[in-house]
């Protein structure tokens, strides 16, 4: 089975090429939908087969590399010259990511058949989605940094194409470009990191690099540079401070895109990358601290913005940024397994929430303002119930999926050698806000009085949309059982599965398994109380005493305004970075250096030469021989002078 690994990547590529080339002539939504979803489904089935084979073999036999052909190289054959192949690696981590990408991806493809019905770009949408799956699988299956970067940039391209999918609207083009450019700032870091890795380790293959790294001891400056530059890449792709600003705008894309790319898969690429490079981070404890701090700060920061947003997708977008913050917090406290666990559960419940919001938007005829909704639960029962499952899962109510993964992170943030009570407190603060804004979202959208016009008759979405919702709801409900901790008599299967991947890093960091202590139960109880408390407050504010939210907003109007305007970060970036660069380029470089200085001096000297020429016109005799004499004389002078110089 493992030998067929390249097919995982080739199915969606074939789908993309076929739909991209033949799409305009197909004119049959059903056929396009079946091909688009089918290709991802095939990949998912194959990934399951590979997983079965891996489960049946010993842990040390669960890794394989399939090399296809040499890609970028100097091809000079010199020792130590650069060479990288297109090669795919199956191991415990990459197969898990592949299953998430293709599994959730398949469900979202199916959902899109209903959601995109009637769109004139139907074929284009599915070809882009297939291209995305292709790029994402390259990212997670690559056996070297450069191929991973191909996937990394490829998903960025698909993100660009899909955010700008409805390109005739003005805003989508801005949002798409912003996403790509901000990501490129991160990619700049990624590229420099790759250059450093190559000069340090002489290769970009994971195996070679990690083998060489495993004999190093922590504390080298170059490792700090490598890991921080990689992390810069991660903050771009995974929307962390300071490069998170593109993700909220990315909601301009169709909702299935928000679910697939901007919640479940692509934005987790940074987390995956750090997990993959855990050994490198273990060699740079300073970088781990940076990762943890940025993660925790982002988790809280984004959550505060999410508290007051009124656009259903914007709330979910800030929630995504916040949840990604938790994953980085986990990475930063060296709880790599917990981070990947949260990545998985988040993929389930956040995809569910986004798809649910899509069903709501669909029913409300493109309305996205939750202040203009309310009482939708009787119109959209399936959407309502699945959405509630997603909401309690993310809020951290046991036994839903989010509880186990988030609690694991909070516990590690507190107890790990790299954790602290400050990090835990930030995490807990984020958690209470998460519970609150999710409660607010549910109550304002589905409960209470209808606040929309009577001409609007919301109706439940078609089966192609509701069935994926139900499947994701089941996963959000039970997905956490893969990681029940020992303290709750679980076996923590997922962490156990990933152990071989993170062992080298844990070994380097001297991390050993802790015994169960009473404080773990205390913190667990606090977590649950926090989640329940947040939801309760939201219930009071938005259902019980309906005027309360407005009164609070009026009372703390300044804070409210700052939050509503997202701390004015976009405006600050524009004023401090974007506008100065444009002005300098335009006024100083182009009109200053190019036009005035360079061309000015050349035209000036041309005029000068012209003046000299009119003076010299008198010696212009018209006798060719005298010209030749002068010409040869000049050459002799120059050559003679050079000769004199050389002696």
């Amino acid at each position, binding site marked *: 089975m493992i030998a067929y690994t390249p097919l995982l990547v080739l199915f969606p590529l074939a789908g993309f090429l076929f739909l991209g080339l033949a799409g305009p002539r197909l004119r049959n939504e059903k056929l396009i939908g079946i091909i688009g979803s089918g290709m991802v489904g095939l990949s998912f089935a194959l990934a399951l087969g590979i997983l079965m084979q891996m489960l049946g073999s010993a842990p040390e036999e669960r890794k394989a590399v399939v090399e296809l052909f040499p*890609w970028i190289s*100097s091809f000079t054959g010199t020792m130590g010259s650069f060479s990288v192949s297109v090669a795919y690696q199956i191991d415990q981590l990459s197969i898990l990511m592949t299953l998430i990408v293709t599994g959730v991806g398949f469900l979202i493809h199916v959902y899109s058949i209903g959601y995109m019905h009637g769109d004139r770009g139907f074929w284009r949408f599915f070809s882009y989605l297939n291209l995305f799956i292709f790029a994402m699988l390259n990212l997670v299956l690559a056996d070297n940094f450069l191929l991973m970067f191909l996937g990394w940039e490829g998903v960025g391209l698909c993100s660009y194409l899909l955010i700008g999918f409805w*390109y005739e609207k003005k805003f989508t083009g801005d949002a798409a470009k912003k996403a790509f*450019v901000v990501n490129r700032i991160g990619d*700049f870091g990624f*590229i420099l990191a790759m250059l450093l890795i190559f000069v340090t380790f002489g290769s970009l293959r994971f195996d070679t690099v990690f083998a060489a790294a495993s004999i190093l001891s922590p504390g080298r400056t170059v490792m700090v540079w490598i890991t921080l530059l990689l992390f810069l890449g991660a903050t771009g792709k995974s929307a962390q401070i300071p490069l998170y600003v593109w993700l909220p705008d990315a909601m301009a894309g169709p909702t299935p895109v928000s679910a697939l790319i901007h919640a479940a898969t692509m934005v987790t690429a940074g987390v995956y990358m750090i997990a993959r490079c855990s050994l490198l981070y273990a060699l740079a404890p300073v970088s781990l601290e940076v990762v943890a701090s940025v993660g925790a700060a982002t988790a809280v920061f984004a959550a505060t913005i999410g508290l007051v947003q009124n656009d259903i997708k914007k709330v979910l977008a800030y929630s995504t940024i916040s949840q990604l913050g938790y994953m980085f917090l986990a990475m930063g406290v060296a709880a790599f397994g917990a981070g990947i666990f949260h990545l998985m559960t988040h993929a389930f419940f956040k995809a569910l929430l986004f798809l649910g919001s899509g069903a709501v938007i669909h029913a409300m005829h493109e309305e996205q303002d939750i202040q203009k909704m309310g009482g939708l639960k009787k119109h959209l029962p399936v959407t309502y119930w699945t959405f509630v499952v997603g909401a309690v899962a993310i809020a951290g109510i046991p036994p839903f999926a989010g509880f186990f993964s988030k609690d694991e992170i909070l516990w590690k943030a507190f107890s790990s050698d790299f954790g602290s009570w400050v990090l835990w407190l930030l995490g807990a603060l984020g958690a209470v806000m998460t519970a609150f804004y999710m409660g607010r979202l549910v109550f304002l959208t589905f409960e209470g009085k209808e606040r929309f016009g009577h001409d609007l008759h919301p109706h439940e979405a078609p089966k192609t949309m509701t069935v994926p919702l139900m499947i994701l709801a089941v996963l959000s409900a039970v997905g956490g059982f893969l990681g029940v901790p020992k303290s709750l008599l679980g076996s923590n299967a997922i962490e156990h599965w990933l152990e071989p991947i993170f062992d080298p890093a844990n070994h380097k960091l001297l991390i050993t398994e802790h015994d169960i202590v009473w404080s773990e139960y205390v913190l667990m109880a606090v977590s649950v109380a926090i989640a329940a408390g947040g939801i309760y407050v939201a219930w009071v504010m938005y259902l019980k005493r309906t005027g309360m939210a407005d009164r609070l907003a009026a009372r703390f109007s300044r804070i409210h305004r700052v939050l509503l305007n997202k701390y004015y970060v976009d405006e600050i970036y524009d004023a401090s970075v974007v506008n100065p660069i444009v002005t300098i380029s335009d006024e100083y470089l182009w009109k200053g250096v190019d036009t005035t200085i360079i061309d000015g001096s050349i035209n000036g000297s041309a005029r000068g030469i012209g003046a000299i020429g009119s003076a010299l016109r008198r010696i212009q005799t018209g006798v060719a021989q005298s010209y030749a004499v002068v010409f040869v004389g000049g050459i002799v002078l120059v050559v003679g002078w050079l000769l004199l110089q*050389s002696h």
Partner: protein
Amino acid sequence: MIENFILTLTIFLPLAAGIVVLLLPSGNTRLIRMAGVAGSLVTFIVSLALYVLFDPARAGYQLVQHADWIPSLNISYLVGIDGLSLLLILLTTFLTPLALIGTWNSITVRLKEYTVMVLLLEVGMIGVFASLDLVLFYVFWEAMLIPMYFIIGIWGGQDRVYAAVKFFLFTLSGSLLMLVAILSLGYFASIVPNGHFTTNLVELYQVGASLPVNVQLWLFAAFALSFAIKVPVFPLHTWLPDAHVQAPTAGSVILAGVLLKMGTYGFIRFCLPLFPNAAIQSAPFFSVLAVIGIVYGALVAMVQTDIKKLVAYSSVSHLGFVVLGIFSLTEEGMQGAIIQMVNHGLSTGALFLLVGMIYDRTHTREIKAYGGVARLMPVYAAFLLIISLSSIGLPGLNGFVGEFLVLLGAFRSVTLQSPAYAAVAGLGVIFSAVYLLWMYQRVMLGPVREGGLYGGHKLTDLTKREIATLIPIVIFVAWIGVYPRTFLSQSALVSKRTVEYLQGVQRSAPAPLTMRAADGSMQELRSR
């Protein structure tokens, strides 16, 4: 047998085609166009034989042809190719017919003369890449100026005369100094024991390296100035935007696609091996200029209001990568530079074709005049996107291969000794995305303009002829991006040997006064 004259045949086939075109009746425009395209297509097909006959595993120049020209001065008609010239000749013969097909209806006045000029230009370009005698090289180098001058000056836009003269003077002022340097070099060859005046490049490789460093530096400077203007290297680039904006589409395509590479080609073929010590000493200087060009070109491209000017400035940025790669004096940098030359020829050539196609419809190049074109021209939108992405350096397409190898070469360069070059050049990665995607957004995305009118004209999507022009380019854009080995393996040996030679010189500094074999081909050539 064919090996002996195939190169000469390739060089002069366009000339023959040009003569045929001259004999055609001026009134029959269709026939003239067909003859022009046919002539350049046949040249392309013949040039494929070069690819077949060339052996990338063999060092030195191949398919060499030698004929006496001025025997008393040992100036000869000497042509031959290595992997570098092979790639650039193929690029030339590939782009010329596409430039003619892609602008089928664009030229209406003096069509016959125009077609002849394009064909003559092709002769000059192939000749430049094939010459192994410096005087022969110089003749082709100057010869190609003339048709380009006329193409801009006669068939160009409003300010065509200013642009043509600027182009001519910039280039000529550099190349006159180069002529002096060539003659000096020949003279130096005659003053060594048993020496004689020669302009045979292979023989001169030994002479140049044996010169004292300060003499090397002067001669190097004379060559380098000429090449730096052609590339163009910052701050000698200001002729380029004017020339591009004024030139007709086919002129821009060939100018960007091929002519600029003659500068970077000159650095690799002449400056580095002829004056190794000077090249090593000035490597940091040129690398700094290259890095400035990368960032500067991108920033200035960003604020252009004219699409063609934007693409022209993007060339300054992209060619900066080539120069940086060359002067990193590493195998990766050299290989990256060479493939980046091909990439830039394809991508920017295609960009100019695309700009020309929409200009033919609307007669405006102002970005402001567009918006929402994607809705009306979806096929065009797809092509422009693919080519823009290739230019941005998206992995999987051609641009990335060159840029990454260049960055890696600069980063690990022993000569440059600082990762700062690569780090600053890496900023180009960000800015190229900004200016191209911003252009794409302003031209292609957003709502369709009122009434669907652009410059007073309705838009129609690409014709079959236009699509047929672009598809071959897109194929190579993807091919190089996914499997660059096909191309990089051609130039691997010449890159390796050039770099090894320079590194050897650098290790054994100060300047060697003894004779040094630059290249294995020297002996091989003598044995013929």
